[in-house]
């Protein structure tokens, strides 16, 4: 009888410990995402502005975007689908809620080796009002330590001091558009 009680007690302890661990792991994941909210982003000088199939130095738009609330989305430009379903769609969604003073910026990742292919095949598919900053070696993500496999963490809003205040991609989580709108109205 005593043994049976001991066994039940041990099983109870094991279940309890494993459920505690599980909870802890969940929390640490959330914390990992929330570290985004402490970051201040910079725009490396290696970025180029892509406008009407021409490239300009990033300095040319820095004055126009400094001190403004910005929504930034990182897009991989290695497929037509990325341009149409990501860049164009996000541009359309965010332009409905942005005010005149806010800026929408796309960081467009295109590898050097794919750049000619991109300009020939995909650039004509871009249909966006937002500012497009060409990045040929993940410089924006590397310098800001934003490299992630989670596509949802590649879209965020920064305040006038370039601090991330909200993140998430409304294409995958449509309810987020309401939160972006709330922050912009504030």
């Amino acid at each position, binding site marked *: 009888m005593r043994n049976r009680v001991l066994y039940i007690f041990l099983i109870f302890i094991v279940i309890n410990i494993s459920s505690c661990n599980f909870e802890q792991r969940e929390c640490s994941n959330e914390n990992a995402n929330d570290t985004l909210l402490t970051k201040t982003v910079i725009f490396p000088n290696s970025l180029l502005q892509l406008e009407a199939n021409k490239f300009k130095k990033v300095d040319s738009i820095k004055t126009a975007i400094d001190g403004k609330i910005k929504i930034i989305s990182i897009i*991989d430009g290695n497929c037509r689908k990325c341009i149409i379903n990501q860049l164009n769609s996000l541009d359309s969604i965010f332009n409905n809620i942005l005010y005149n003073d806010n800026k929408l910026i796309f960081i467009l990742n295109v590898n050097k080796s*794919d750049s000619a*292919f991109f300009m020939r095949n995909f650039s004509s598919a871009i249909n966006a009002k937002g500012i497009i900053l060409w990045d040929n070696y993940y410089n924006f993500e*590397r310098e800001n330590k934003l490299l*992630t496999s989670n596509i949802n963490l590649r879209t965020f809003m920064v305040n006038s001091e370039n601090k991330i205040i909200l993140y998430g991609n409304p294409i995958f989580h449509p309810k987020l558009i309401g939160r972006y709108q709330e922050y912009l109205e504030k």
Partner: protein
Amino acid sequence: MKNIRIFSVLLVLFVFACKSNTDEKSKYFEEKESKTINVSDKIIDIKTELILGKSVLYIIDSILIVEEYRPVDDKVIHLFNKNTFKYITSTGILGKGPGEIGRCGKIGIDIKNGVLWVQDHGKRVMWKFLLDSVLNNEMYKPTKKIPLYKDLFLVRLGILNDSIVLGKAVHVIDNGHFDMHMAKLNLNIGVAEKYGYGHPMAVGKKSNSQFKLSVENNFYINSYAFCDLMTICNLEGNLKYNIYGPDWLKNKDNRKDYFHQVNIIDNYIIASYVDGPAFLYDKNKRPYGNSPSRFLIFDFKGNYIKTIETGHKFINFCVDDENNRVIMYFNDRENPLGYINLNID
């Protein structure tokens, strides 16, 4: 009473006959370390004067065709002497004008007539390139084309005769979905229709397979990416063999990748094989498709013979029968083109 006995005996015989027939057509393989040959130190680089984007390789006569699906220049199809690898010419001008290619797909090689049927998914047509004209005129543009049949269009193909093409076709379900079927295309009227055996369990995404037609051996092969499976059928479309790997139907979430390309070398089937995750992540945490580093060799009855490990990831290969060479486009070598000399026996 007597009738019942006879009926019972016949029923047993019938069931037994059916079972043995199915078993004869089902082959199972498992790779063996003792049958694995490493050829990583036997790869010979092919140094070309052109910079080539990711490419698909074909052989016609004495010519190696390198077709870029990520082109770096204005032309997408490059011809080399297959014996010396000396550059001959390029064709397939990219553009929107007449005879120009919008977006290049696979090529159907008609060896008998010296014709390349080049798919153009931009213009949704298949262009007829005459090899003689390509060799004589570097600004050659094809004039003949057939439309890609919109509901069922062949994406991997083999030329059966002057008017029929067999291959694996995309069947469009709706804007976001498709599955694949074996199909035959009539070149004269440009109409494709479903054709031949398809494994009943390889449906939906699992129906995606590579295709090789062998007219001289009277069969065609499908090698499946998301099933550990190859099928061999005769030219009437009837099943000869289903060749099952150890993971057959284990890959329920399609996260694993198995067969890529398939071809014929001597009297054997050569298939590139991954047996690993379908997607990997690079140092920038971006997903990319896995690619094979080894070949599995089977005889024409579907029996596993050996494994050939190249030690390098490659995305495409072709077989030069005359020189006993397997030519590959590598993912992870400085020179993307290279070959190995291969004698299976």
